[in-house]
């Protein structure tokens, strides 16, 4: 018999043995289901994990996680567990459950079960070792699967939210004949900045605007990329024959812009939106005069 064949045989034997041991393990876990599950739930409460959930909820979830855990050990297939953990994450993420909690409870379960194995095989060290050899890789893989499932679900939620934010399009509004305002609120990333510019340039064309007021009162922070993009937007608007007035630069943003050395020489800036609109009206030759017989005055 060649050595490779021998080692293949050896492997087969080990796999068969390990499956056999796992089945023994599963039988043990099924037998002691009530007690182990309760201990696990108690350990979760002790460790102050899943504080967002009530005791009953924890117990119900613990039961279904336990059953899925044992089921995965028994069948050795992870598809069911993957979809279960996705499902579980979907339910608990909106409740504010954190990643460390999910990883924590799965690791707790692994430890609780390992302890019960120690207790059961304490007389037979060789057997205990062999059981742990079978148990540990499977248990670690389960912990891994659940954690990855949770993180993936979270990332999916984050992506969805980013998408939603992106779709909150920034309106380009006409306030007077030939005068547009573009109020920007929230975080500007390069992609959104690009979208804003495209919308603005198109707006200038369709509304035949001569003056545009970009109001960034609602922008909390700005980095070099976005600041440069703003300058580019101003220049591109000029190429279309429109003058841009930027308003509402917060002291922080003003400092950032000066520190990173963006060339603001070409930018027209006014303190607030009102001042910006007033200057735009002057540029366009409007004069706003209060009427004496006003209903409000």
């Amino acid at each position, binding site marked *: 018999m060649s050595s490779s064949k021998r080692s293949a045989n050896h492997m087969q034997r080990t796999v068969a043995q390990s499956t056999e041991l796992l089945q023994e393990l599963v039988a043990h876990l099924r037998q002691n289901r009530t007690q182990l599950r309760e201990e696990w739930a108690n350990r979760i409460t002790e460790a102050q994990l899943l504080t967002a959930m009530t005791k009953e909820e924890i117990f119900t979830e613990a039961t279904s996680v336990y059953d899925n855990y044992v089921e995965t050990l028994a069948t050795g297939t992870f598809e069911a567990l993957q979809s279960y953990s996705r499902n579980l994450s979907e339910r608990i993420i909106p409740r504010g459950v954190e990643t460390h909690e999910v990883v924590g409870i799965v690791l707790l379960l692994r430890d609780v079960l390992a302890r019960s194995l120690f207790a059961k095989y304490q007389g037979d060290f060789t057997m205990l070792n062999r059981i742990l050899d079978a148990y540990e890789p499977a248990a670690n893989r389960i912990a891994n699967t659940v954690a990855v499932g949770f993180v993936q679900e979270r990332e999916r939620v984050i992506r969805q939210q980013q998408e939603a934010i992106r779709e909150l399009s920034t309106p380009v509004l006409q306030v007077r004949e030939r005068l547009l305002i573009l109020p920007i609120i929230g975080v500007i990333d390069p992609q959104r900045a690009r979208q804003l*510019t*495209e919308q603005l*340039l*198109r707006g*200038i*064309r369709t509304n*035949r605007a*001569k003056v545009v007021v970009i109001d960034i009162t609602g922008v909390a922070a700005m980095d070099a990329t976005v600041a440069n993009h703003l300058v*580019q*937007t101003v*220049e*591109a*608007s*000029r*190429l*279309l*024959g*429109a003058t841009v007035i930027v308003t509402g630069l917060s002291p922080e943003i003003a400092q950032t812009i000066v520190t990173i050395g963006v060339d603001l020489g070409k930018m027209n800036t006014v303190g607030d939106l009102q001042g910006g609109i007033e200057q735009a009206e002057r540029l366009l030759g409007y004069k706003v005069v209060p009427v004496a017989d006003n209903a409000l005055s």
Partner: protein
Amino acid sequence: MEVPILKQGRFLIATIQAALSDADLLQLRRALIDKVIRFRSHGVIVDVTALDVMDSFATRTLRDITNVIRLRGADTVIVGIQPEVAFAMVQLGLTMEGVATALDLEEGLAHLQRRAARNT
């Protein structure tokens, strides 16, 4: 392809109809300067609405035209730059400083008329 240059009162209007080669651009420059001198024009409008690309040579030539015509005491306005072209130009750093721009022909004429009214 030659760019037609129309005389409209005191102004000249050059409408670019299709993408121009470098030679065409130089020809446009020569023709515009000749006509400004011949007609004693006060202003020139270059309409680039039909262009969907503006490279550095085109940008530089347009700036040169503006500067040369300014030396003759006349104003130049570039009109009709498309939004996408404008953004691409800015990203390439082709900002055409010192060159007047307007949305379209109508705006360009209004701009030149305002300038002329101020100068007289």
